[in-house]
């Protein structure tokens, strides 16, 4: 599998000096990095090293104590998750976050409907906002057709995870942040997700930031990887560089 090289070097996402503390715990302690357009960027690190906190800060879910976040040169620090979504940033969650009482198909439709028309025009739009086909395509892609009309809350863990990921892709975001997308997902589908991301990346130049503990997945997929330990950046580099980094091996990967 060959992966397209990033096209330019101007950063798509730039995070500088990001800090977030909870009382005495410095969850994120001054993290800076850049994600280039068309790049698949990995974030790894031991449990509690601040990866999810980093995501939540970038995505407006929590307010960082310090630091600046830019999207294509524009300051997006402190923007709401909704605003970021409309700027083309999608995400998935580490914990299951689906709409439990809605069917899988409706979960997908509602994931993109706000990107069409105005508030008022949506009042007069068809129920599916014309998104049924797109939803069906993703349902097939994630092989959840047999549960497409079930309530999402009644699916197995892995199935819900897939729904969550599929939702992030419904509105065709330019940048997607995925928090442990493979956790609980069957290995064959892990391969599927990997292929999907590479495909989107190659064909449409989609950029991704992925937190994952599944090293096979990360090493195969990512162009560059950031290693976080105790809220700090330990290393940034290509998979090969990271694999060769003694410090990283000790702190995270094991040998």
């Amino acid at each position, binding site marked *: 599998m060959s992966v397209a090289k990033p096209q330019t070097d101007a950063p798509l996402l730039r995070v500088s000096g990001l800090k977030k503390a909870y009382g005495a715990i410095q969850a994120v302690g001054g993290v800076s990095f850049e994600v280039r357009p068309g790049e698949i960027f990995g974030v790894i690190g031991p449990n509690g090293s601040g990866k999810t906190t980093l995501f939540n800060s970038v995505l407006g879910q929590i307010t960082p104590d310090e630091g600046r976040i830019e999207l294509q040169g524009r300051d997006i620090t402190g923007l709401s998750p909704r605003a970021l979504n409309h700027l083309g940033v999608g995400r998935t969650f580490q914990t299951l976050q689906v709409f439990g009482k809605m069917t899988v198909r409706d979960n997908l439709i509602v994931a993109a409907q706000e990107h069409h028309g105005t508030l008022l025009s949506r009042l007069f739009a068809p129920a599916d906002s014309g998104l049924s086909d797109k939803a069906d395509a993703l349902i097939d892609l994630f092989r959840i057709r047999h549960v497409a009309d079930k309530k999402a809350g009644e699916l197995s863990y*892995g199935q819900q995870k897939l729904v969550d990921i599929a939702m992030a892709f419904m509105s065709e975001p330019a940048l997607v942040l995925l928090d442990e997308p493979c956790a609980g997902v069957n290995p064959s589908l892990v391969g599927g997700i990997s292929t999907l991301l590479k495909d989107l990346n190659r064909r449409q130049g989609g950029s991704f930031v992925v937190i994952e503990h599944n090293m096979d997945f990360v090493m195969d997929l990512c162009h560059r990887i950031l290693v976080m330990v105790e809220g700090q950046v330990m290393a940034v580099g290509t998979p090969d560089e990271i694999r060769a980094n003694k410090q990283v091996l000790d702190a995270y990967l094991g040998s």
Partner: protein
Amino acid sequence: MSLNIPAQDVAIEFRNVVAGYGDFMILNRLNMRARRGAITLLIGPNGAGKSTVLKTLFGLLRVREGSVLLEGQDITGAAPKDLLVRHGIAFVPQGRNLFGQLTVHQNLELGGITLGMKTTHERIPEVLRRFPRVQERLHSQASALSGGEQKQLEIARAMLLRPKVLLIDEPSIGLSPLVVADVFRLLRELTAQGTTVLMVEQNVKSALKISDEAIALESGRQVLHKQADELLADPHIERLFLGGAHVAAPAAAGA
């Protein structure tokens, strides 16, 4: 089809078990056996019914037909508390299972509620030695922990019980590679002391390495029961049991 386990070595046995949610039967006349003092790995695609097997065994779901046996003794319909207290079964479910508003330490205490406080307090430090990350957060509110920290806490909590039979559902979800290795090592140690482990894992390859036997489930039935090393060596493993046979190259999403 099934490995032959001498009757006196069978720890867990499902006989024609039918169980599910409401009227939706997930397990269809499931027959399955797990060996005493060994790690039996339960694998299968998302939605196969693996978690359902564990929940049924632990008395959380009603057995509609058939029977569940523990060391030859019929435990069909027994309440979780009895299974825990009388039969020494402990269960670490999938997903979040903490008391978010209580502290980490209080969560541990509750984990030992069936042991009495004295024993629990004696065992807590010993268990915490295995999970230093949890130790560091001992007086944090449990919901403040990171995903992986929470999972570690859950496993630690179950270890307090020194179970005779441990049911553990996808322990590797959210755990960093080093911790996964630790947990797997821990499971091996437990079996060395005679504990029977029934584990569900999607992280199949690493899990097979530490398991004794593997059972594959599909649509609520056992489709295979083999020695773990034999399976690991099987060149068709991907295609056959990990859903690989059904993997079509995914089309580009939504485009």
